[in-house]
């Protein structure tokens, strides 16, 4: 099956693209496929590809499809590439990011209020890492800048969309139990 069109072509596209491939963009390239047919093709492709080998994996991330290596090979890859584990975000940065992810679009004073801390250095770090971005200004006095998460955020945390995050209410239940 993998060797037949359009499977072989879509797999080649998934490989060639560094960004997650959006089904909508594939429809433009395969106009003879209906959206339903395309979803069927993609589902079958993912299943078959992930099954015939155990090095790579097609994942759904940020609303698209992308090929990555499997988690279990990370040590041997790191050893070959001689890379250090990438710098993880600090606890402070993760907390700011969590606040932004759940309350976006949100201004800096609002973030500071929730975290009980001033200091915007984490905002700068997150902007530089492109995990958050400027989303305009809030229509209140002073017109403060609004921040929100990016597509890069979804990719970085392996999320298909924001709804994959548990809701804050779920965290609340966790606290009460």
């Amino acid at each position, binding site marked *: 099956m993998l060797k037949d069109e359009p499977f072989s072509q879509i797999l080649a596209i998934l*490989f*060639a693209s*560094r960004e997650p491939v959006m089904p909508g963009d594939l429809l433009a390239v395969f106009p003879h496929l209906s959206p339903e047919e395309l979803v069927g093709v993609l589902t079958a492709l993912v299943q078959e590809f992930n099954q015939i080998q155990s090095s790579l*994996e097609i994942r759904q991330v940020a609303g698209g499809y*992308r*090929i*990555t*290596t*499997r*988690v279990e090979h*990370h040590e041997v*890859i790191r050893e070959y*590439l001689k890379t250090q*584990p*990438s710098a*993880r*975000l600090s*606890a*402070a940065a*993760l*907390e700011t*990011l*969590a*606040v932004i*992810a*759940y309350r976006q679009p949100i201004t800096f004073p609002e973030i500071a209020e*929730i*975290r*009980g*801390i*001033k*200091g915007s250095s984490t905002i700068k770090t997150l*902007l*530089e890492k*492109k995990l958050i*971005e*400027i989303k305009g200004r809030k229509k209140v006095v002073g017109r403060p800048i609004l921040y929100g998460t*990016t597509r890069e955020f979804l*990719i*970085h*945390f*392996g*999320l298909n969309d924001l709804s994959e*995050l*548990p809701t*804050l209410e779920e*965290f*609340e239940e*966790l*606290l009460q139990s």
Partner: protein
Amino acid sequence: MTTGADYQVELEIFEGPLDLLLHLIKEQELDIYDIPIAQITDQYLRYLQMMKDLNINIAGEFLVMAATLIFIKSRMLLPVEVVEEGEEGEDPRQDLVSQLLEHEKFKKAASLLHDRQVVALSIWPRGDEEFEEEEKEAVSVNVFDLIRAFHRIVERYQENIVMEVQHEEVSLEQKLTELRSLLMLQREVLFSSFLRKAVSRLHLVITFFALLEMARLGEVRLMQSMAFDDIRIVAC
């Protein structure tokens, strides 16, 4: 004896007053919905004192929280106000409790992101860039990149001006160009700050002539809110 260094390691855990309060509550297994405010306030203040003793700079928000705690404590000591029938008097701790709960929820969310990050950092996208030869140095940009780039240009430009004025020889034409592009960047410049850049009497005089010339041509307006106030050079 415990050394200062030992404390410092522990002190760094608390990023803000909410973190510290949550720690005190958890450590003693207190009920977050019924915080013994007098006890917590004491511990909190002792902690701040400890930081002070160790010459650690206490961030303003820690002091604000101290004031809040003392205020709540005093309110708790007052007799419960007579309230309308069927209504319950508001617990003075209520705001603090909801703030703590909110903070705790986000801490949980942050730890979830942390876990996901561990997985995400263990997978690799394709390394080779077969199809991206044409735009290899190109990157996708957002608003932050834009302002960062502009900031860098302004910095670089101002450095260049400083370097240029260090040359002794200067012409009116040069000064005009310099002032024009400075105004393009800033739209408004204080007369005093512009003159400060002049390294010699000659520079000073030529700068002054350049300004007058630009005012004459209607390129700038020279404004002053009151006598002896600094003159603002505003681009037209």
